């Protein structure tokens, strides 16, 4: 680093020895610090942001203890503390305590400079109390306890429940009355009931679903025949009769499944777990509706870890429940991955083709540079514009055309003429096309000219040169482009809102029902899930933990893809560098 003064007339020689104030000015330390400030701010922001998401996302599933607060006015709340903060209470709140407690509260407030602690308690029990959350200020509290046996219940609907075990009933007879025995009896039967419940869902969805599909197919067939031959024509009458006889022939099967379900339900109805809430109300539960239950204040570290892992497992592999605010995001993960893969299947070959055309085949300088500007421009077109295009062109124009040609019998309800995973993939393919084209072009440009000339010199044709020499060398760059395109596609939400991402789509785009791949189905997407949970949710406070976890998951996917791209680029380029001559 040079620190010599840039003064044209050199000062006295001793300036070097310490009288070099001028060099200090020339260093421009202040400006360097300002530039550094810009860097530090952006870096800190990333670290804080990612840290926040990782922290919030990874801790929300950790079971927290249940606090029971008895208030001065006699109300009792039990629940998990979700927020803890200080605020300046208004006078009216203190007056509401009544004349006997208000002066004391005022005095405490005065000591704390007018600020009071308040906690947001997730009190659950919506079916009993009508609210999911309650704010409690410190000055309202009479007693604070951590009840030993209080149970946290995660169930299929109505949100969480907090209560102490009162008794366990089997066939209406109380078999256990003490908390401990209730808990043990419950544990004995719970898993079996849950398994039975899963079996019931399986029958409802798959077995009965298959019957319904047959009936639906027959109905559509008769509509198709009606459209072809006319209402009341012999063919139509025959088709209607066929549908009718099919319905009759399926009836016994249907009844058999129904009786299986009834049996499961009857067995289920034998068991009742009765819980008592903090304010003494009792509520009984079917064992099958309880997803997870644990005594929050009796857990040791290992138990907590077990619950934490089981919640993650549910999150990753199960379907959502409670309007998406609980349960898992498996359909969203599946939708995101499928959509991204379909997108890359569409985008990579075409992107490579376009880049090959532009770099290896096209002639004429002006056209190519105009095209290049167009492609680079496309990279800057807002994603929502692609969404608009996708909706208008793919869904309404192409999809509507397909419906009119092949799915007439289903109209007016659209099959392809509405948002679906295929249209979403194609839209995103268009969106990420520039990424692949630019990356591939750069990779092709980086292949030394000498290698091509060598290949031609050996008598190889153009295609042989491209296929055997150029493309392998350009592969790292192309792969990187493809992975970056996938990362971009996986994180994009705005266009998906228009072309097929929906709030809830239990039917996956790929499943075991013929024809196995359903490109017309709408799908769930992690990014859209975040938007929907954070903004459209009925109970947004309860959905918050889920949003954070989903965000964490989405970021993990995208970061992994990015890291894969970086790693791949490094690895492959090393391999080829070694083989270069």
């Amino acid at each position, binding site marked *: *680093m*040079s*620190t010599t003064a840039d*003064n044209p007339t050199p*000062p006295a020689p001793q*300036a070097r020895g*310490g*009288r*070099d*104030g*001028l060099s*200090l000015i*020339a260093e*421009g*330390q202040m*400006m*360097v*610090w*300002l530039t*550094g*400030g*810009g860097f*530090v*701010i*952006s*870096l*800190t922001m*990333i670290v804080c*942001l990612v840290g926040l998401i990782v922290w919030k996302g990874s801790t929300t599933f950790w079971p927290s203890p249940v606090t029971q607060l008895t208030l001065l006015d006699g109300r009792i709340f039990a629940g998990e503390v979700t927020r803890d903060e200080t605020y300046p209470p208004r006078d009216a709140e203190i007056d509401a305590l009544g004349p006997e407690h208000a002066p004391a509260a005022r005095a405490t407030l005065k000591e704390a400079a007018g600020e009071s602690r308040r906690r947001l308690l997730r009190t659950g029990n919506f079916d009993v109390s009508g609210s999911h959350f309650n704010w409690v200020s410190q000055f309202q509290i009479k007693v604070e306890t951590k009840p030993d046996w209080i149970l946290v219940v995660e169930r299929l609907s109505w949100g969480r429940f907090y209560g102490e075990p009162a008794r366990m009933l089997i066939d209406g007879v109380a078999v256990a009355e003490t908390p401990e025995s209730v808990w043990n009896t419950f544990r004995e039967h719970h898993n079996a009931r849950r398994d039975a419940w899963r079996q019931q869902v399986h029958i409802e969805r798959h077995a009965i679903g298959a019957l319904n599909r047959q009936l639906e197919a027959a109905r559509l067939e008769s509509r198709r025949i009606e459209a072809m031959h006319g209402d009341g024509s012999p063919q139509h009458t025959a088709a209607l009769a066929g549908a009718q006889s099919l319905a009759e022939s399926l009836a016994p099967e249907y009844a058999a499944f129904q009786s299986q379900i009834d049996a499961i339900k009857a067995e289920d109805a034998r068991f009742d777990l009765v819980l008592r809430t903090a304010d003494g109300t009792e509520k009984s539960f079917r064992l099958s509706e309880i997803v997870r239950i644990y005594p929050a204040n009796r857990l040791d570290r290992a138990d907590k870890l077990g619950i934490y892992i089981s919640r993650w497992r549910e999150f990753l592999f199960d379907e959502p429940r409670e309007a998406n605010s609980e349960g898992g995001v498996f359909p969203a993960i599946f939708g995101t991955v499928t959509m991204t893969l379909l997108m890359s299947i569409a985008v990579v070959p075409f992107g490579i*083709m*376009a*880049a*090959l*055309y*532009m770099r290896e*085949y*096209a002639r004429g300088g002006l056209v190519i540079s105009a095209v290049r500007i*167009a492609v*680079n*421009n496309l990279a*800057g077109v*807002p*994603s*929502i*514009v692609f969404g*608009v*295009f996708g909706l208008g*062109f793919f869904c309404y124009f192409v999809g509507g055309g397909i419906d009119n040609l092949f799915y007439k019998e289903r109209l007016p309800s659209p099959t392809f003429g509405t948002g679906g995973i295929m249209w979403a993939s194609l839209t995103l393919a268009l969106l990420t096309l520039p990424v692949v084209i630019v990356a591939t072009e750069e990779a092709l440009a980086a292949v030394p000219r000498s290698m091509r000339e060598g290949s031609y*010199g*050996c008598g190889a*044709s153009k295609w042989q040169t491209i296929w055997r020499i150029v493309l392998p060398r350009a592969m790292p760059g192309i792969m990187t482009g493809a992975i970056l395109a996938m990362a*971009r596609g996986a*994180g994009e939400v*705005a266009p998906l*809102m*228009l072309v097929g991402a929906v709030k809830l789509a239990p039917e996956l785009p790929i499943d075991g029902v013929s024809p196995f791949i359903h490109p017309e189905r709408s799908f769930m997407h992690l*990014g859209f899930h975040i*938007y929907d949970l954070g903004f459209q949710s009925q109970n947004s406070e309860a959905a918050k933990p889920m949003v954070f976890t989903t965000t964490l998951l989405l970021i993990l996917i*995208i970061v992994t893809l990015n890291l894969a791209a*970086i790693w791949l680029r490094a690895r492959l380029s090393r391999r080829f560098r070694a083989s270069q001559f």
Partner: protein
Amino acid sequence: MPVENGNRPHSRRRTHWSVPFIDRAAGSIISIGGFLVIAAVLLVCVFLALVAIPLFGRSETGSERRFVVPGLGSDPRAVRVDEYMAIAWVLGEDWSVRLVRPDTGEMIDRIEPFADAIPTAASIDVERSDAVFGYPDGTIRQAQFRFASKILFRDSIPDQARDLKQGDRITADGAVYEMVAGGQVRAQRFEALLEEPTKAASSGILLIDEAHIPSGYVIAAFTENGDLVTKSVTKRTNLMTGVVTTRLTGAETPIELPQGMGNPERLMLTGNGDCVFLIWSDGTTLRIDTRDINNPAIAERIDLTPEPGVEVTSAAFLLGRSSLLVGDSAGRLSLWFRTKPADAGTIDGVILRLARQFEGDGTPVVAIGPSARKRLITFASKAGTIATYFSTNGKRLARIASPGVTFDTVGIAPKGDAIVAVAGEEVRVWPFQSKHPESSVDAMAGKIWYEGYNEPQHIWQSSSGTDDFEEKFGLVPLVFGTIKATIYCMLFGLPVAILAAIYTSEFMPRRTRATVKPMIEMMASLPSVVLGFLAAIIFAPFIEDVVPATLAALILVPISLVLGACLWQMLPRTIGIRHASKRPLAMIAMAILAIAVASRLGPLVERLLFTGDLKAWLTGNVGSPAPGWIVLLSPLCIMSGLLLKGRVLEAWARRPGAARTRRLVAAMDFALFFITIVAGLLAAYALGSAVGAMGFDLRGSVVGTYVQRNAMIVGFVMGFAVIPIIYTVAEDALNAVPEHLRAASLGAGATPWQTAWRIIVPTAMSGLFSATMIGFGRAVGETMIVLMAAGNTSIIEWNIFNGFRTLSANIAVELPEAVQGSTHYRMLFLAALVLFIMTFIVNTVAEVVRQRFRKRAFQL
């Protein structure tokens, strides 16, 4: 492969046929594929435009159909068509009703509803089937003039209609039958049901009008005695007998007529019965407030035709029966709105104001036919011209000239698909197609005076809860929102990104750079939905609680960095050089310190300057304008102070500086820094107080009422989204400056800062500019962040503490609900096209500049 091999005859092998074949096939497939891809790119733009173009389409008027209906007399009174264009009724001069087919002219029937007594006053509503007639004996008869349509299924279809093809019509026993989809037949009839006369006034009725309000009817009439009769009608059905008894309650008030005037020519009652207009032919109009039906009072007297000699020749209500349409003898049709300005000064707070005029052919307007469902108006001039306009934006949709014909009455079909006019006994029908009349360039880009507003405004409002709602498609608020978001985001993001790029490229060890740069680049792939969610759910509520501290931190962080530099200079030189790479840690420490200080200082400043409540001050309830100016000016003053110090003082200190020790200069610098800060603050205080005292107020312009989701939050978070993009491109541009320039400069004795500032940055300037433009492009189109964190209110206001609605967020919110092919749908495509064009311009500029930069960098 060695060349000699080819010369030996025995080793010459023929190329397998597949090689050239595959070569050619691959070539053509790639060319086709590549071409398709490029075509797809163009398709995006073309398709958007194709969907949006019909918005600007012209309306079409089909060829005229003409037929004679005998017996109408020379002055038919009214004409209406049903919504299927199956029946038209014409009320003849002799008060008989003729029913004709508007498509063929075939007579269907003739009805004589007034066979027993001819009314002296009549009002037949356009929007509903209600009608009311007044008689010379002071009685009134309410009536229903209605089209009844009935769908007939297989068994109930009459024999004549059984074998029709779909779309065919026949006329039989007073009805028109049409075969519709699904083998059903629609029977369309006309019914004129007159109720029994009810005594309403003590003398003969001259003028009458009726309004259908939720609780029943209101009737207003003008009698021979000069009284205004205002009555509300309640009907009660006897459950046992089924007899309907009609009761009229209200008042018969003598009206003090304007001096020297006879009886009014016209009486009109608004749709909710709260206002009566009495109109004389010279334009004089009395507006009478009838909110209290027992006690009508004159609210306003106004001249509808202010020019001398111009007379009112016809009048009607616009859709919704609130705004007046007045045709005059000068050939213009004027639209008058009832506005409610704060300073109205009338008893009901309403004044009538002229909103728009429509030109005919210059001859007097003889008949007006407003549409029953749309804001279309059609009117006939005396010389035979029929003009059709869309009332909201004044777009002319049709102009039909029939020279020499004076039409007696005109009408427009309910669906707006035909215009009907009657001249004497001749009925003329024109098929008419209005394509997206709501959209016009005026309405998109200009201020439009919408009904219910007090003045012309830019408004985007595409849906609402009420029925008589008018869609308002002004793109200006959305474009404004987009620009506002972009500017506030670049204000924060641009300096940070460019400075960060300069630091990374010029002052950072190569190895650190290699790890840090991908980190920031990774930020670019952070999904914006995540940023938007964090902005709206975490940052917005958090910052709402600490607004003063946040603003203080914005000012203090840069100052603390300069302070840090001053302190760093005080370190002995050897330590400074050795630990130069650890400067970022010190910077972080300084920034954290600044934030800590700001969290204390913010509330303090709030107490001292803003009466302890910044939000109340922002709303404009409390305090003087001065503190705002002081806070705004203090960073500016400090910045210019520092600039002055750097430019002037240091240049001046150069010579003496060379003679001082390093430590002394550093200490002087430190002192100078403090002096600059203090001086800057004082200057800001003085200037701010002065500007505030002069009466300029920041509130209402760049600051104002604080809303939780606002431009500041979006600016921060979107800045966060554009930083990595600008950073990457800028850093690449700085790195692309050839190394020999850097080496030469350093070798010539320049410090790294001097090299960076005088050599590298100027050389890379076009690259930096291109980075900025690319950042702009991204900010313009960003959707999820603004959708979630900007509040999405389409207001035009620079206030940084309020929200906005951008083009992109608007599309995301509204397109899923827009009906395919509707005006709204096409408007959203147009919005997308506007967005496309905005980013296209920005990106092309960036691309062209970048290519020039690249060329220049290679030349160096």
